[in-house]
């Protein structure tokens, strides 16, 4: 029988729909009976959403500026002297 620890181990696979039918059923049955695991899976889901919302809103501004500068430089070098193929 699936215990709480075992469920915690495969909780991400459950959330992403990566479990096979039998495993998926045993998680569902456990969740029906266990409040703690329901809270755990719900909180793990919220954590994933948080992470997604956060990372899309916070790019690495300085690094991006440096990349942009390098690309701009390379582009203008290419335009001014077509000869120096690298």
């Amino acid at each position: 029988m699936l215990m709480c620890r075992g469920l915690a181990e495969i909780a991400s696979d459950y959330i992403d729909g990566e479990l096979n039918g039998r495993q998926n059923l045993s998680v569902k049955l456990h969740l029906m009976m266990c409040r703690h695991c329901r809270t755990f899976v719900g909180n793990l889901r919220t954590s994933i959403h948080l992470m997604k919302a956060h990372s899309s809103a916070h790019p690495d501004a300085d690094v991006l500026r440096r990349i942009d500068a390098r690309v701009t430089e390379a582009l203008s070098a290419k335009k001014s002297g077509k000869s120096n193929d690298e």
Partner: protein
Amino acid sequence: MDKAVHTESEAALIDDLKRGDSLAYRKAVRDYSPAMLSVARFYLDHSSAEEIVQDCWVTVIDAIQKFEGRSGLKTWLHRIVANRCKNTLRSSNREVATDFSESLEPELANRFNSTGRWDLPPKLKFHESADTLMEKGALSDCLDKHLSALPESQRSALMLYEAHQHKSEDVCNILDISASNLRVLLHRARQRIFLMVETFQESGEC
């Protein structure tokens, strides 16, 4: 299958890049570099990773002419970055060392008793929606701190899979890891974020 990712706006962007349009490059650098950095940081330290991503863009200026769009632009860029990183590692005889052995974070594993039941169950429900929680600046700062403290391998997997929505198969190819190892990385990273949010909700501290 990547064809579906190939939107009209991407096709237009690719045409502009082929013409060497500098505004198009600016947009592409802004949109695509964060994920390229995630790929590179899986393999290399931050400053080498940045250098590789810069070099890749310079290569792209010429290579884009031969880009046929069989894969999406994103996947194509990520393969270029990954190949460069692998070459760099190979020439310096280094390897990416990652621990895939445990599927639970120790801090979480300790919360079960010997019969496998919760000893210290999660106390609070993260009742608020993600958006409401994010409006609190302190939580956002805390996430920043914890995301940057993740092992690089976990962070790269998390970013590519969740934030940049790559399919598992693509992430495995780009990072050169098996599907089951990707699952471990994702799950470990998510647990850390879960533990962080839990501490934050209970104590208001990061």
